[in-house]
């Protein structure tokens, strides 16, 4: 019996675990594997690296790579070739097998997360009913790979970096996962395609108070999950050389590098799908999905628009991450852990309740009307603002009472010392 339709009238499991393995499915899967995963996504990564170097250079009043090809466009290709002819140095005392396995695991994890991202209508490799759980499951393989890398290197800096990395990744995974629950609740499904469909009908998820809070926590936790500044403590070069990949050189280091940028790309894609309505250009309109009339021409047009807007949004996230990297210094480890457990987790737990209230007021009555919207803003928006205030203020008070930073020069102590 279909439990979903008995309960709701609408089928709960709109997607299927199974697909018909016809010739066209095989061809599409083959194309995804060869063009997408072995060609397009690594290419995107190569140009993200180029973009980051250009953008970072502009932030620092430099020019950036401009020697290899026009505007330095072939710089990434040259770097890749250089990595290929570099000697692969593995320390004598390292665990040879695990040392090889670790970067492969991290890269595999980054690749697997992209399998459920709907880039446009019909343009999704697979759409399992439990897509989001799959996504979280495969993305938590990478801490394992990182830890194996640090442990197998037989190097104290590597081990320290790996320990830090695991503690950080594990801590920030909680707010990352908890912040996706409002989205699941509103869409009533774990499938990323259903979540996209819900946003076509009800507007982008980031554009209501609980959604916006979830969006922000998801972004912060994601930046921590991919080890980027200001959360790049696992590879803090001023303290622990290069963290878990201190003993990695040549192509094995290249794999870690590729995995990091692939991770940045995939969390940007996931954030776009979950909170910014995928490829839809307008927040409260079904355009261009309503142009679909079954003909191939309309399909191509709609997917063209969706893909273009999707890429723009992803680029925006990627640029934001570069921007943050160019602006903020690295965090201190105790503050990093505090921030995850004492700010983000309580906020996310509160936010789940706010999301349910929003569902009751705006989504459950059926159609999205201005009246529902206004009531929702009052019923869920005010508690969100109060909740954020409450959590941050309580923590500030606790921190002041504990004086955790007494031995550390803060802005206040510097002023006192100079007096």
């Amino acid at each position, binding site marked *: 019996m279909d439990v979903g339709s008995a309960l709701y009238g609408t089928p*709960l499991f709109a997607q299927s675990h199974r697909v018909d393995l016809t010739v066209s499915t095989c061809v599409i899967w083959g194309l995804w594997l060869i063009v997408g*995963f072995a060609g397009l996504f690594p290419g995107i990564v190569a140009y993200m690296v180029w973009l980051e170097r250009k953008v970072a250079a502009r932030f620092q009043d430099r020019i950036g790579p401009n020697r290899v090809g026009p505007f330095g466009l072939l710089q990434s290709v040259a770097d890749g070739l250089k990595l290929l*002819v*570099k000697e692969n140095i593995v320390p004598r005392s390292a665990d040879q097998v695990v040392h090889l396995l670790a970067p492969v695991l991290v890269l595999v994890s980054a690749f697997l997360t992209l399998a459920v991202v709907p880039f446009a209508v019909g343009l999704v490799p697979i759409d399992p009913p439990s897509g989001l759980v799959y996504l979280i499951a495969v993305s938590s393989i990478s801490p394992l790979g990182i830890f194996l890398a640090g442990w197998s290197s037989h*190097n104290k800096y590597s081990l320290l970096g790996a320990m830090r990395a695991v503690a950080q990744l594990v*801590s920030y995974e909680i707010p990352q996962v908890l912040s996706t629950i409002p989205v699941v*609740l509103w869409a009533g499904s*774990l499938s990323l395609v259903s979540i996209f469909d819900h946003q076509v009908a009800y507007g982008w998820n980031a554009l209501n108070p609980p959604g916006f809070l979830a969006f922000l926590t998801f972004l912060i936790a994601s930046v921590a999950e991919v080890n980027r500044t200001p959360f790049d403590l696992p590879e803090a070069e001023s303290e622990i050389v290069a963290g878990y990949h201190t003993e990695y050189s040549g192509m094995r280091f290249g794999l870690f590098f590729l995995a990091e940028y692939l991770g940045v790309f995939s969390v940007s894609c996931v954030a776009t799908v979950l909170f910014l309505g995928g490829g839809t250009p307008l927040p409260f309109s079904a355009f261009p999905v309503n142009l679909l009339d079954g003909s191939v021409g309309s399909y191509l047009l709609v997917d063209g628009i969706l893909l273009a807007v999707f890429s723009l949004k992803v680029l925006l996230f990627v640029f934001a991450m570069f921007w943050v990297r160019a602006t903020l210094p690295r965090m201190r480890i105790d503050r990093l852990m505090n921030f995850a457990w004492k700010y983000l987790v309580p906020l996310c737990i509160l936010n789940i309740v706010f999301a349910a209230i929003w569902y009751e007021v705006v989504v459950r009555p059926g159609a999205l009307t201005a009246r529902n919207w206004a009531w929702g803003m009052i019923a869920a928006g005010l508690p969100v603002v109060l909740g954020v205030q409450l959590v941050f203020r309580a923590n500030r008070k606790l921190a002041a009472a504990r004086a955790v930073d007494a031995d550390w020069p803060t802005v206040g102590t510097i002023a006192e010392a100079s007096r």
Partner: protein
Amino acid sequence: MVAYNYVFVGLLLLTAIGFALAPLALVALIAPRKRSLAKGDTYECGVKTHGETWVRFRIQYYIYAIMFVVFDVETVFLYPWAVAYGGLGTFALVEMVVFLALLSAGLAYAWAKGVLRWV
């Protein structure tokens, strides 16, 4: 023929492993290989490595791991609730608030016990 979605995941896994191993194999073929005693040493800023490396680590990390497991299992309970919420009515919200309150009490207890303090 009907196949599970996860057949694609299996194929993707193989592709990804192949994608990772291919350049490594190429490196093994074309890159120079010259071993030396100094090159194979552990790199710890040029200082000779001192003492044991694979030591037992501080308990703090283990406690964070336990906290992680607790909250990860919590999300396993939260996902089905969130998916089915539309069909359950307002009472589901009350139930989940109770569940979340219990968990928050656990977090507050850990916090008060100083588990969350990085030393």
